[in-house]
């Protein structure tokens, strides 16, 4: 059989990009600022909801078709047709979705600083986990958002007008990767600065940080705003890739995957995150029966469950063998360090 590597490449690249953004955002919040945002999937879902709802509504409006149920598959078809015929519209909607989602995500991130002011560590993690579930239960019941339990389909690939769907997917995955690397570079700039140092001071000793004149609630809030905006951007990228937004897909396990990526790579270390996200994505895609078949390996049993067990074991092993992650934390690359290094 012809092995067709392209879908796998698209898949790996896109999901690597999406999860890299999520992991970077978790790294800012937890790795640097010490705020374990275990509600990550909630902010991710916000991006997807915004992208889905906004894009679908706008496309329906642009189509001029009325009287069609917004949630129906017919409406989804209509939206695809509009997107096919109006490249600039769908691109504009895509870009606008990114902006709106980032803003909405930021607002919700700011609200998160309320629990973050009162709680820390495992308590905060559990509350935010519960927050995420509240968001999901709400979204699955509140139909106007993303069509409740049916989910909203027909969020077209912004490059659907290219014609060849395979190329459109590939090109889109390149866009996702580019945005993800852009996010990586931005994150690197953001944290290798007095701001990054400030975040770390709160993580290391919040009280001392405030005695040293830092308005810690505001700083925590800013980290959560940034992290949540980024997660929402990832949600937008996800929605436009999968082209379907279903509330029930945003379950806590997504957060756990992100947490594992950061812990595996090494906290407070964006290169580690780069690596952790890579390892986890590749592990998910390459331990499948399909990939093993490409390599000519045939397993005699269903490896689906085994993959989850391996993921669990991996989490445990990292924490036992290399609690600091694959790449350990480094001093921030600020001019202060350069000055100190100059001295010899």
């Amino acid at each position, binding site marked *: *059989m*012809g*092995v*067709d*590597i*392209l*879908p*796998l*490449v*698209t*898949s790996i*690249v896109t999901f*690597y990009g999406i999860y890299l953004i999520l992991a970077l955002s978790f790294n800012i919040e937890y790795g640097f600022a010490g705020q374990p945002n275990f509600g990550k999937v909630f902010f991710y879902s916000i991006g997807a909801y915004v992208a889905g709802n906004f894009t679908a509504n706008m496309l329906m409006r642009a189509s001029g078709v009325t009287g069609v149920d917004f949630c129906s*598959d*017919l409406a989804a*078809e209509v939206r695809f047709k509009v997107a096919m015929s109006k490249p600039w519209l769908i691109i504009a909607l895509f870009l606008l979705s990114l902006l709106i989602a980032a803003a909405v995500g930021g607002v919700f991130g700011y609200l998160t600083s309320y629990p973050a002011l009162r709680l820390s560590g495992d308590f905060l993690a559990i509350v935010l986990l519960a927050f995420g579930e509240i968001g999901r*239960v709400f979204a*699955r*019941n509140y139909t106007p958002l993303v069509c409740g*339990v*049916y*989910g909203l*389909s027909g969020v077209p*690939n912004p490059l659907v007008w290219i014609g060849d*769907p*395979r190329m459109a*997917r*590939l090109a889109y*995955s*390149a866009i996702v*990767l580019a945005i993800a690397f852009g996010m990586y570079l931005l994150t690197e700039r953001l944290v290798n600065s007095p701001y990054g140092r400030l975040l770390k001071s709160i993580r290391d000793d919040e009280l001392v940080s405030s005695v040293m004149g830092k308005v810690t609630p505001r700083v925590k809030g800013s980290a959560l705003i940034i992290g949540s905006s980024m997660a929402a951007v990832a949600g937008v990228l*996800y929605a436009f*890739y*999968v*082209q*379907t*937004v*279903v509330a*029930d*897909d945003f*379950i806590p396990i997504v957060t756990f995957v992100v947490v594992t990526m950061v812990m595996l790579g090494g906290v407070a270390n964006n*290169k*580690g995150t*780069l*690596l952790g996200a*890579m390892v986890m994505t590749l592990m998910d895609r390459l331990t*499948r*029966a*399909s*990939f093993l*078949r490409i390599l000519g390996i*045939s397993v005699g049993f*269903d490896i*689906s*469950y085994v*993959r*989850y067990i391996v993921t669990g074991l991996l989490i445990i092993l990292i924490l036992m063998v290399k609690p600091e992650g694959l*790449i*350990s934390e*480094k001093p921030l690359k600020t001019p202060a360090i350069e000055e100190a290094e100059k001295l010899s």
Partner: protein
Amino acid sequence: MAEEKKGLKYGLAASVLLNIILLAGVAWALTHPKVVEKPAPAGPAPTVTVTVTATKTVTPTAPAAPAGIIEYPIGLAIAVSGPYAVEGPYRRDAALLAIEHVNKMLEAAGSPIRFKPIHEDSKGTAEGAIAALEALAAAGVKVVVGPLSSKEVRAVKSFADAHKIVCISPSSTAPGLAVPDDYIFRVVQTDVAQAKALAQVVAELGYTKVAIIGRDDDYGRGIADMFEKLFTEKYGGTVKKLMYTPDLPDYSTEVQRLAEMVSDLGADEKTAVLIIAFDADGLNILGHARLNPVLSKVRWFGSESLKRPTFIPPKAPAEIGEFVVSVKLTGLFPSPERNPVTEFFEKEYRSKYGKDPTPYSYYAYDAAWLACLSVLAAGKYDGEAVKKVLPTVAEKYIGASGYKKLDENGDCAGSDYRIWTVVVEAGEYKFKEVGVWSFATEKVSFFG
């Protein structure tokens, strides 16, 4: 600072690797505008009318596989975790069994062709489904059994169309997915047909008030909403709905609310309950309902998913069996319900896995058979060719779940529904056919 350099190296390595993967993809895409297919050797073109019963005669004296075996992969995008943790494995096993049977047939015929199942857990989520399809596509799979739920099917539809991968879903029933000329086929009727038939059966049996308790997911909502619409608009009945979140540990509170709703409706001989549930939630609900005096008094109807061995003894506890008999739990099932293939499938499934198949397992078995037969009929392993030939193959096929003729949308063409209820005969619990709903005439007739 050696540490830092190492870190940099990791980071660089990661990004370089990623870029290489991406570039490889681009290069591949440019040099392989279309996947190159090895011309499939002309196998013994089987007459499509070969049904599963043919395998009955196959003796398992397997000669050593001759050299030059040609293996075609059949993808199984079937969720076995998350919402389908319980139900998924049954369907996966049924599909595996079908492929085993096909291979036995081919072996006996001396054909060099074999089918190789590749299972991917689609996790019951859109992301999981698309990832599963992508992985299968990479392995060169062109024919897939699955995904299970309508939301997963929606998520993979554009991908399947783009990559010319035929997906045969054994259980997606959302009416909206009925799209002509796509790569999605569904071997089960949509919710519309079942809701229509159910509404008519309930109305003709003289019930005017129905309290629905159903899963709040695309399956439960699909039937409940459609039923409500038809039952109120067409038959002037009253409907109260209680939709519950699936995958909760317990539903006793919901059952109490249901009892209150039934009381509000009068709880008389004109009041009935319609339950739309899967195994875990359904058994929990029935377990509570049997203890409730109001709910024990009224007639119960059930969705197709209630016709599972799980719900009657010996699989189910005896007390649940007694309850479903006493409330005359009645539902529908696409007919013809039983045929020799059904018997054969059940026997083989039981002897191989030591458990009874669930209703949708029959469809999974047929979906897998159709997948294999279509590849054979197409004469080559090519999505486009399989897609073209599949409706014809299906039209001539009778499987464990009956006739599989497809309509112009590639979905199971409407068929008659048999009306079943649960009875005890000689101490044994059984689903008994008591009537039929005709697809052609939309008429209900009861036996005897």
